[in-house]
């Protein structure tokens, strides 16, 4: 039960994790046990879609940790997500083996196409799942650490920091677009066959990935909640509200920022690694600055500095996106823009803030009832 201790007093988080648990049980059952024709059947397509939303939710939690609690508006978290995704994609590429179009047992198709004689050094080791998993955590983590160390030590804050995070992801996008980088250029990495020996096309693997995403989200949520509830979390909020003051009472603000920022980037990397096998492709488009801005909108819509709000926001906005881009493909961006304006004007604390307000009103009414 020690694991659930951080949830004490966090009603929103309890409800969110409860719903997550329910979905994690019901969806696989409805997919596997209920026959195809039944109206209750959940298609494998839906399972994968839900799994994708869960990885987005994990990414949003990572952003909320640094934005909501530390006051760093990152417009480049998509970069860490994409790097985690690429690390997983490289593993999946190596798993294809000789089943590629050119049938080379070692080299991925795009390298054969580019006439590369051998595997570049940075592709070595990615045939091992443990090594790829390590890189999923390490690559975004090290990049975030170095970036954070330089930026926070020089006391770059506010809008300037947001702009350089944006520049970071843009620079990575341009780099990954180049064929010479060795990551498949424009097309990225795709045509994956299996993961850990299980075919990516099978329903069971899809459900496994869906459950892994749900588990990762739950654990990351608990970890973030634990950090936020610790004294370090209170120092983080202190930095958000009065950075100079925090420095004068003796906290090394730059180190606190680097630590939490790096942890957040690692979470984003894990989200990316779970995302790639479910959608079946990773390309430089994931580094696009627009993606990073969109995910800040998820958090804003859900409610900043609540963590569970980020989960709600990510799922609501992405469900809306799936719906709108199917029903009215041209209108999606207008809907997104409109949503952001609406939330800023009418729900400054997001959906989570709305819940809180409703609860307070109900409690107020109950109290009034008692006195009457």
């Amino acid at each position: 039960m020690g694991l659930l201790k951080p949830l004490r007093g966090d009603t929103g988080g309890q409800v969110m994790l409860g719903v997550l648990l329910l979905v994690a049980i019901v969806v696989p059952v409805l997919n596997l046990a209920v026959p195809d024709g039944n109206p209750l059947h959940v298609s494998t397509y839906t399972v994968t879609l839900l799994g994708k939303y869960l990885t987005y939710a994990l990414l949003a939690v990572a952003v909320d940790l640094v934005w909501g609690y530390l006051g760093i508006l990152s417009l480049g978290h998509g970069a860490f997500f994409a790097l985690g995704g690429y690390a997983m994609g490289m593993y999946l590429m190596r798993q294809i083996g000789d089943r590629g179009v050119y049938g080379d047992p070692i080299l991925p198709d795009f390298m054969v196409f580019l006439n590369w004689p051998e595997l570049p050094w940075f592709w070595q080791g990615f045939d091992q799942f443990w090594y790829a998993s390590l890189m999923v955590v390490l690559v975004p983590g090290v990049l975030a650490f170095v970036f954070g160390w330089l930026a926070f030590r020089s006391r770059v804050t506010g809008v300037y920091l947001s702009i350089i995070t944006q520049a970071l992801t843009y620079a990575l996008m341009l780099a990954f677009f180049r064929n010479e980088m060795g990551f498949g250029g424009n097309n990225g990495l795709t045509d994956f066959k299996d993961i850990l020996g299980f075919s990516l096309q099978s329903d069971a693997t899809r459900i496994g990935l869906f459950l892994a995403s749900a588990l990762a989200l739950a654990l990351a949520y608990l970890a973030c909640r634990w950090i936020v509830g610790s004294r370090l979390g209170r120092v983080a909020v202190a930095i958000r509200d009065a950075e100079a003051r925090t420095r004068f009472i003796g906290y090394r603000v730059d180190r606190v920022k680097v630590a939490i920022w790096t942890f957040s980037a690692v979470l984003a990397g894990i989200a990316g690694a779970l995302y790639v096998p479910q959608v079946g492709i990773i390309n430089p488009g994931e580094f696009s600055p627009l993606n990073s801005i969109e995910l800040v909108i998820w958090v804003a819509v859900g409610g900043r500095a609540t963590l569970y709000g980020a989960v709600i926001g990510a799922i609501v906005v992405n469900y809306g996106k799936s719906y709108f881009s199917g029903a009215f493909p041209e209108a999606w961006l207008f809907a997104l823009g409109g949503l952001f304006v609406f939330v800023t004007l009418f729900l400054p604390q997001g959906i989570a803030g709305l819940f809180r307000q409703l609860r307070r009103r109900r409690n107020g009414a109950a109290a009034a009832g008692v006195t009457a």
Partner: protein
Amino acid sequence: MSAGGDKGVRDLLQRGRAFDFSGQQQAWLQFKESMRRDRTFDFMVNVKDLKLDVSHGPILYIEDLNVSFDGFKAINNLNFYVDAGELRCVIGANGAGKTTMMDIITGKTRPDSGSVFFGQQIDLLKLSEPEIAEIGIGRKFQKPTVFEHHSVFENLELAMAGDKRVFRTLFAKLNGPQRDRIDEVLGIIGLREHAHRDAGSLSHGQKQWLEIGMLLMQDPLLLLVDEPVAGMTHQEMDRTAELLLSLQGKHSVVVVEHDMDFVRSIANRVTVLHQGSVLAEGSMEQVQNDPRVVEVYLGE
């Protein structure tokens, strides 16, 4: 003629040689210097190992300090000393350099020239803000700055002296004595019944008190208190005076204040700053009767 010429050539050669080798010599000297075992180097010093030495009396030495902002000399050849255990008041008109002086002591602003020492050995100009806080200099700001989204209790908890490194902070738990200390300070600053209220919802005077409480939690050796009674009622002012006086002896306190009645009620020694340097120093009566002070400040 030829002898003289030879001498000239020899001179040139020697000079040339000396010139040639001077770079290497310097490097060698630097190297030798770095091998000395009786010296500790700045980059090797851990803040925790720094020892405060007040054996000569003063806890704070400010000497020949200069700082200017865009040509405006905010601090002009300032010399200022504070004795250990002393309660000192600093007065001066707006722009006299009071806040700038505090900024320099706490590491927020770097001076153009001069020296600032804490005790005889600790060079404050080489330390960062958190390091200065760690060695025992606490500051209350002119505009009360408390953490608005934290409760009063949490504000005090965060300010509490202790290991403030990242991982220690992540696993930190309050123990009994620490809780008692927070409770004690809550009592001193009269906010016990508000302990679990958000600091942002306190009145201006209460925020001032909370900030003083945060200073107490830090348990600093030197307290820099910028305008502690701004926005306070007379009663609150009296209590603040009492509190500051009770700190005297155990802590050294520097109070910057505009309110002359308040200064009169607490000060033993007063320093008057004017245009970035010390105009007069002494007891309140001495200072008040100083014709220069009367002219620039009190006589207004």
